[in-house]
């Protein structure tokens, strides 16, 4: 960011003489950036890079984005690249998919993924399955993105996690970034991916700051879809999570380190295709596993991980059964105390770790 501003102040003529000082004063130190800004940066860079990329959704243009994720993009690129839509998810998602079939690369925003249910036929039947149905002749290079899962005080219809639903379907890729780096790298990869990709963000994370490496600030920084990241190495137990709850795992891991338990925390980054090899390798090292997610327990991501571990060689390395930490099996309540207890906290993770490790 600093480098960009500096360049604008210096005229082209002065540039040659100032080049040396430009490179020293504008040296990119690692800096911190919010998740929101990193998503903005990703879209800005990809829209600049590829004329076929455009953003459409409710309030993405003149409102700067319902959560300000697309701030300034409309001012910069105008109506041809940043399009406000009416509140008609099924219609505009279908339009986005049609545009992708015809060769454009739309980013279709859902204000939250709860509203994607109105359009889910287009995500699954029009986008995910078309490449297969056409025997590989009709690609659908679309990205569906928006906040998923936990928010604060918005109650049942606005708080559902769709990771399990979307990751169920072949033909779709599903990413669930945690940090600012994750968001930037994964969203850029999603936009460049020729397949339909669902990018599950998290509203509560939008304002959270993370350090961004020099590499992450580069305009071609990509994180490969389908590869998990080991956020913290450990030898006693493996914690696998995605999105906001990676943070919950890291907090729990810090606490547990205080009593001598070293957790290995895996940030899935991608739900489909899931990097189960990283999970298996970790379990074969630690012999214990707890999965952590915000979604409901039945048929959830944790359930999928457990099934895969049991079917894999890693099963033989388990010293204890696997336990899942999930959102409570209830529609999200409104009252603060109740809402607090509907989603996992570090205490749920530490309690589960202790149970798996059979310690008090």
């Amino acid at each position, binding site marked *: 960011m600093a480098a960009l501003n500096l360049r604008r102040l210096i005229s082209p003529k002065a540039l040659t003489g100032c080049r040396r000082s430009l490179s020293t004063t504008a040296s990119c130190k690692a800096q911190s950036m919010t998740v929101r800004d990193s998503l903005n940066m990703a879209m800005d860079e990809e829209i600049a890079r590829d004329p076929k990329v*455009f953003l459409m959704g409710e309030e993405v243009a003149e409102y700067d984005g319902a959560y300000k994720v697309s701030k300034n993009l409309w001012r910069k690129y105008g109506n*041809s690249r940043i*399009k406000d*839509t*009416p509140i*008609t998810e*099924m*219609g*505009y*998602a*279908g*339009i*986005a*998919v*049609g*545009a*992708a*079939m*015809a*060769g*454009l690369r739309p980013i279709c925003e859902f204000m939250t993924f709860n509203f994607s249910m109105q359009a889910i*036929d*287009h995500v699954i*039947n*029009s986008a995910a399955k*078309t*490449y*297969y*149905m*056409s*025997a*590989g*002749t*009709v*690609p659908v290079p679309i990205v569906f993105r928006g906040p998923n899962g936990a928010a604060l005080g918005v109650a049942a219809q606005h708080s559902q996690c769709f990771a399990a639903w979307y990751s169920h379907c*072949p*033909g779709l*890729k599903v990413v669930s970034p945690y940090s600012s780096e994750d968001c930037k790298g994964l969203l850029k990869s999603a936009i460049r991916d*020729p*397949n339909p990709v669902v990018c599950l963000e998290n509203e509560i994370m939008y304002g959270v700051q993370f350090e961004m490496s020099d590499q992450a600030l580069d305009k071609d920084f990509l994180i490969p879809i*389908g590869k998990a990241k080991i956020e913290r190495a450990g030898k006693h137990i493996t914690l696998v999570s995605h999105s906001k709850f990676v943070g919950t795992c890291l907090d729990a891991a810090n606490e547990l380190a205080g009593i001598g338990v070293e957790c290995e925390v895996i940030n899935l980054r991608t739900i489909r*295709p899931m990097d189960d090899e990283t999970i298996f390798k970790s379990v074969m090292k630690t012999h214990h596993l707890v999965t952590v997610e915000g979604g409901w327990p039945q048929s959830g991501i944790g359930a999928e991980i457990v099934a895969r571990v049991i*079917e894999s060689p890693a099963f033989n390395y388990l010293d204890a059964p696997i336990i899942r930490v999930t959102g409570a099996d209830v529609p999200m309540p409104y009252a603060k105390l109740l809402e607090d207890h509907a989603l996992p906290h570090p205490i749920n993770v530490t309690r589960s770790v202790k149970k798996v490790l059979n310690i008090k």
Partner: protein
Amino acid sequence: MESAITKDDAVITAYRAHGWAYIRGISVLGVLAELTGRVSGCARGKGGSMHMYAPNFYGGNGIVGAQVPLGAGIALSFQYEKKPNVCLTLYGDGAANQGQVFEAYNIAKLWKLPAIFICENNGYGMGTSVNRSSASTDYYTRGDYIPGIWVDGMDVLAVKECTRFAKEYALQHGPVVIDCSTYRYHGHSMSDPGTSYRSRDEIQAVRENRDPITNLKNRLLTKELATEDELKNIEQDVRKHVDEAAAKAQADPELPLEELYNAIIIDPPADMRVRGCDVSILAKTTA
């Protein structure tokens, strides 16, 4: 309709798409073999009856009404890339009441998309006559703020002219709705005899009085633009061509089993494996 547009215009329709697939460039064999699910099918047997695609022909769509926003999206792509092309977006009287159709109308009008929405009103959505499905059967008015044209869908020349007009209009003014009045002789699908909800007399009457091919033939003969023999020869050639393709469509092989696991995603990583029905099956996959 095809004669009024070019290969650079796009077409999208619902599942009754076999004629369109052929018209848009798929061979008769490509269509018939897709119905029999063989390798020589236009989607190699993986799409089937409802999912045939060709250049600038986007199917073949199984979900009633879904093709309408998709078609508006294809029209958006022409506008976006400043191409002088339109997208013919066809749907039936049954689909005409879908909410997403109106959502597509709304955005098409707001953004002035070169979309031509065509309702093929054949009188029945499956077994439900239009009077039982639609509070308003004036489908050309359903676009409300989008101008609409009613055309006799059984009159080949009227449809051609209507489409020509619509393309010219859409490129200048934005979307238009066409209400194309037609009929369905057979039942909805192979499992529907088509007589439990209408009379045989009704079907017969249309065959005798309104058949588009018969009427075009009579016109050609009356105006002496063709002789009986010329037309008979065309018919014989076509029959022969189709019979040959049909025979081949029944004799050609199916895809090899490995293809079950291919073309799920583009650029799958080399180490990606697709689960079969039990853990003993972990298939490789290609794009």
